[in-house]
C-alpha cells in the first residue's frame, strides 16, 4: 500500500474514532435538554409542522421560533387592543406552539379562554366549554413547563377561582409551593381551598403546613405571611365546632361568586357538589345535611342543577 493511501486510511480511522468518542457527549446533551431533544415529550419546542404553512413556520425553520413567537405576540397585542377577542385564539395558539416556554403567553391564553371568552359566551354550554378549554390550555402549559411554579399556580388559581374545584386546585397550589421562589400567597391559597368547603380533615394539616413555610423573620413578606397564617389558624381552631359560622362562611363564599356573576356550574355527575332543592345553593356531597340551610340530606336531589345567581336569596349574608 502506498504511503499516501495508508495515510488516508489512518486519517479515516482517526475521524471514525473522534466521531465515536462524541457519541456519549451527544447522549448527555439529549438527556440534559429534554424540552428540545426528548421525542416522548408530548409538547416540544419544535412544532412547526403542526402550526401550518404560515410565515411563522418559515422563521421557525431557521431556528428562530422565539422571534416568530414574539412577532405573533405583538400581533396578539394589536388584536387585543382592537377588541377582537375571538381572533386572539389562533394567534395565541401559534405563539404557544412555537415557544411552549413562553409562560406569559400561556397565562394570557388560558386566562383569556377561562375568563374573557367565558364571560362573553351567552349560553351555559358555551360558558362551560370555554372554562374547560381554559383549564385544558393551562394543563398543557404545565406539561410544557413542569418546573415553573407560576405556570402551576396559574392552573391552580383558575381551578380555584373560576372552575370552583378547590380539591383539584389544592393539588396544584401544593405542587407550585414546592419550588424555590414560590410566593407566600401560594401556601395560603393551599389552605384556603379547604376553608370554603369546610374540609377540616385537610384544612388543619394545610394550615400547619402553611405556618411552617416562609419563616424568615428578616423578610417582610415572610413576616406578613406568618401573621396571616397564624391568625387564620387561630380563627379556625376557635370556630371549628360552630355550624352557624360554617354556614356563614359558605354563604359568604357564594355571595362573592354571585357578585362577580360567576355562578356554580356543576357537572351532572359532579363528585363534590350537589344542589340543595330547598335553598338552591351548592352543598358538599357526603354531609348529612345541606351545609347552608340545614335541610336533611334525604331531601337533597341527586339531580345536579345549575342555579343562576338570581336564585341565590338576597339576604344570604345575614344567615
Amino acid at each position, binding site marked *: 500500500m502506498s504511503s499516501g493511501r495508508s*495515510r*488516508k486510511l*489512518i*486519517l479515516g*480511522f*482517526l*475521524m*471514525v*474514532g*473522534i*466521531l*465515536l*468518542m*462524541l*457519541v*456519549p*457527549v*451527544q*447522549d*448527555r*446533551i439529549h438527556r*440534559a*435538554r429534554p424540552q*428540545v*431533544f426528548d*421525542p416522548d415529550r408530548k409538547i*416540544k*419546542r*419544535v412544532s*412547526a*409542522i403542526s402550526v401550518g404553512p404560515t410565515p411563522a413556520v418559515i422563521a421557525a*425553520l*431557521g*431556528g*428562530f*421560533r*422565539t*422571534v416568530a413567537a*414574539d412577532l405573533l*405576540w*405583538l400581533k396578539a*397585542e394589536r388584536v387585543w387592543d382592537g377588541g377582537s377577542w375571538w381572533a386572539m385564539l389562533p394567534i395565541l395558539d401559534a405563539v404557544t406552539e412555537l*415557544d411552549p*416556554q*413562553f*409562560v*406569559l403567553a400561556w397565562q394570557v391564553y388560558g386566562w383569556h379562554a377561562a375568563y374573557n371568552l367565558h364571560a362573553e359566551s351567552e349560553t351555559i354550554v358555551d360558558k362551560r366549554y370555554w372554562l374547560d378549554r381554559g383549564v385544558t390550555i393551562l394543563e398543557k402549559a404545565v406539561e410544557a413547563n413542569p418546573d*415553573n411554579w407560576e405556570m402551576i399556580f396559574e392552573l391552580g388559581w383558575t381551578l380555584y377561582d373560576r372552575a370552583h374545584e378547590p380539591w383539584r386546585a389544592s393539588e396544584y397550589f401544593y405542587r407550585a409551593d414546592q419550588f424555590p421562589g414560590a410566593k407566600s400567597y401560594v401556601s395560603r391559597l393551599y389552605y384556603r381551598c379547604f376553608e370554603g368547603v369546610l374540609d377540616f380533615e385537610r384544612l388543619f394539616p394545610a394550615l400547619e403546613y402553611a405556618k411552617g413555610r416562609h419563616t424568615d423573620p428578616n423578610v417582610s413578606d415572610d413576616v406578613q405571611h406568618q401573621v396571616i397564617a397564624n391568625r387564620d389558624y387561630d380563627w379556625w381552631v376557635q370556630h371549628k365546632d360552630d355550624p352557624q359560622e360554617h354556614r356563614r362562611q359558605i354563604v359568604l363564599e357564594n355571595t362573592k361568586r354571585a357578585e362577580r356573576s360567576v355562578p356554580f356550574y356543576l357537572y351532572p355527575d359532579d363528585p363534590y357538589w350537589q344542589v340543595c332543592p330547598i335553598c338552591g345553593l351548592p352543598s358538599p356531597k357526603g354531609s348529612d345535611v345541606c351545609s347552608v340551610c340545614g335541610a336533611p340530606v334525604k331531601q337533597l336531589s341527586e339531580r345536579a342543577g345549575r342555579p343562576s345567581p338570581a336564585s341565590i336569596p338576597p339576604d344570604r349574608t345575614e344567615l
Partner: protein
Amino acid sequence: MNPQLAFLIGLFIVIVALVLTRRQWAPAAVHAVPSVWRIAKITVAEARRRRVIQAVVILVVLILISMTFFSYLSPQEQSRMLISGGLAAITVFGILLAIFIAAFLIPQELESRTVYAILAKPVRRFEFVLGKYVGALIILAAIVATMTVVLVGVLMLQDSLVQDLPDSAFNPNLKGVVFAAIMNYFAIAVLTGLIILISTVASTTMTVISAFIIWAVGSLQSTISDLAAHAELPVTKALLTVVYLIVPKLENFDFRNEVSNFVPISYGTGWEAVIQGIGYTAVVLILASIFFNDRQV
C-alpha cells in the same frame, strides 16, 4: 450503540492512529503553528479591507439600538423582546457573514492564483486550510463580540430607563445573554469549518447554497431525529438517520429560547456542546485537508 462503549472504541482507535503516525504528526505539528498563524493573520488583514463586513456590523448595531422602541409593552415583555430579537440578529448576521467569508476564502485564492505563491513556500496544504479557518474564526469572533457588547449595552441602558411594575420587572439576564452569544459563536465556528470543507470541492455558488441548507437542517436536528424515530419506511428512516448523523447539531448551541424565557440554563450542557463541536470540526478539517491535498492546484 452504547455511548460508553462507543467512547472507549473511539478512544482506542484515536490512540492507535496517533501512535502509528507519531513520527509524522509530531514534527509536523511543531512546524504547523507558525505557518498557520501567518496565514490566519493574512486572512484577517484581507477581511479587514472588505468594507461590506464593517457595513453589516454597523447595520446590526443600528438594528439592536432600534429595538428599544417597544416601550408600550410591559417591562417583562420588553426584556424578552430585546433579548430574543437581539440574539436572533446576532445569529442571523453572524451566520450570514460566516457563510460569505468562509465560502470565498479558498476559492478566491484559487481564482486569483495567490495560492501558488503561498504553496510554493514551505507551507503544507493542511496548514493552509487550518490557517484560513483560524483566520475566519478570529474575524467572526470580533464580529460576534462587537454585536454582543452592543446588545449588552442596550439591555443595561433599558434596564436603567424602564420603570419596573409590581408584577412585571425588566430582566436583562446579562449572564444568559453573554452565554447564548458565546454558544452562538461556537455554532458559527462549526458551520464555518463545514463551509471550508465544501469550498475545497465545490464552486462558490454551490458552497453558499449548501451552507444555507446545512444551517436550516442543523437548526432542526431534533425534528429530524423525531421524524427518523417515527418514520415507517425503512428507506426514509435510514435517510433521515444519515442526515442526523452527518449534519452538525447546531441546535446543541441554541440557548436563545431558554435565555429569552428566563429559564435556568444548564451551562455544563453548553460546554459539552462545545466539546462535541470541536470534535466534529476536527473531523471536518481533516476531511478538508484530504480533499484539498488531492486537488490539482
